[in-house]
Every structure is written in C-alpha cells, then in structure tokens.
C-alpha cells in the first residue's frame, strides 16, 4: 500500500509528463518546444527520485536539464529567429505521423496490459525489498573490475567524450 501523498504526487507528475511531451512535438515555435522538453526531463528526474534512485535523478537534472538544454537553446538561437513559426504540416505528413504513433501506442499498451509479469507489487514493497543504493556502492560499481562492476565501459565513455569534444570542435569551427 502506497501513501496517499505519493499517489497524488505521482498523478501530478505523470499528467505533466504526458501533456508536455505531446506539446513538445505539436507546438509550432521551436523555442517553446525546447522549454516543454525541459519540463518532460524534469518530471522524468522526479520519477527517478520517487523510484529511489537519488543519484540518477541528480545526474538527469545536471546533464540533461543543465547541459543538453543549454546546447539546444543556443543552437536554436544561432540558427533561427525565435519568433519564427514552423510551417503547417502537410496533410500527408500529418496522416503518416498520427497513424504511426497511434499504431505503436495501441500495440505497446496492448502488450503492457496483457503481460502478467507487470501487474505486480506496489512501489513501497519493492523499495523495502531492495537495499538502499549508497553513493559508495555506485562508486565501487563504476571503477571495479569484478562481476557487476563497470571499469571498462566507464573508460570507454571517457574516450568517447574526448573524441566527441574533438569532433565537435572540428566539425563546427569556422573555415
């Protein structure tokens, strides 16, 4: 049994997430679309907090809401006038988009509601069943070499980020 406050918070955030993700793809001004994306990312971070992954929620806010959103806003301001509206959708494109997304929505929801595995225990029970993830455990998992420890992917990501910095500078520099 979950507490009433938890359920009310869940509903507020879930409705915000659904509404803002639909508005992200339907608004015609692109700067507004980026702002709605920010709200979607923040409500995802709230879900991470509610599920008991505090570190992941903090990373989501710092990297996505703090880093990627700044990149998006800067690139929008560099390439377009902020008041410029996107062209209206052609009939054909809108039909294609709506039919694709409705079909995938129906198929996925059908699969979700048919799956007996998914109608399980409540969040409070599952949080009580798992042990608390401390910062120390995350640190050991990231830099260890044993089973369920991830030093190699960690180093691979660091090389990837270096390559990405060089690639970004080389591609976007003035000739």
């Amino acid at each position: 049994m979950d507490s009433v406050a938890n359920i009310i918070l869940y509903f507020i955030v879930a409705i915000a997430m659904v509404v803002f993700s639909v508005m992200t793809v339907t608004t015609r001004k692109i700067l507004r679309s980026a702002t709605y994306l920010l709200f979607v990312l923040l409500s995802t971070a709230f879900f991470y907090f509610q599920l008991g992954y505090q570190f992941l929620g903090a990373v989501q806010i710092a990297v996505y809401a703090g880093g990627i959103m700044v990149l998006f806003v800067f690139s929008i301001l560099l390439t377009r006038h902020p008041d410029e509206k996107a062209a209206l959708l052609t009939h054909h494109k809108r039909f294609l988009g709506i039919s694709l997304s409705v079909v995938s929505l129906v198929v996925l929801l059908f699969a979700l509601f048919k799956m007996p595995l998914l109608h399980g225990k409540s969040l409070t029970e599952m949080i009580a069943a798992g042990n608390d993830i401390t910062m120390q455990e995350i640190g050991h998992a990231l830099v260890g070499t044993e089973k369920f420890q991830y030093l190699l992917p960690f180093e691979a990501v660091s090389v990837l980020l270096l390559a990405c910095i060089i690639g970004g500078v080389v591609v976007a520099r003035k000739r």
Partner: protein
Amino acid sequence: MDLSMLWYLVPSVIMFTAGVFGFVTRKNMIAMLISLELILNSADLNFVIFNRFLFPGQMEGMIFTLFAIAIAAAETAVAIAIIINIYRSIGNTDINSAKEMRH
C-alpha cells in the same frame, strides 16, 4: 490503491509515441533532435522501472541508464555541431534542403 509497475510504464509509452510522431512530422533538424531526445528518455525511464520492480536488489538498470545519459550528451553535442555546420553552408536547418551533405 497501489503504484504498480504499469503506472510508471504508461506515461513512458506515451512519451515514446509522442517522440515518434515528432520525428516523422518535423522538418527542422533541431526539432527532430528534440523528438529523438524524448524517445531516448522514455527508454532510459523503462530501464530504471524494470530495475526497481523486477530486480530490486541489483542496480544494473541504473548503471545502464547512467551510461546511456552520458552517451546521449555526446551524441547531442556532435549532432548540434553538424547542424550548425549545415546552417553555415546552406542557410537554414530544413531537412529537405540538405539533400546532399557535400557543400
């Protein structure tokens, strides 16, 4: 009333389909990238939900999402560098006017 796994998966599914809709209908490359970000975010959320409700004693889903967030940041930075380069050479970021990459 219990907050079971399904309750968290349904908003994630809706976010995913909104991303698919935006990716198909948008013409501006940055708007397509924003839709892609929605799809990626719903996949990340699914990893964490499955981790919490099916394997609460482990944290593999969380670690996977951590790496996915890092790689998404790298991918977005490179994509935006490419978009700005295209804007310099053809003057807009419309997907239809960038039929060929060499300029």
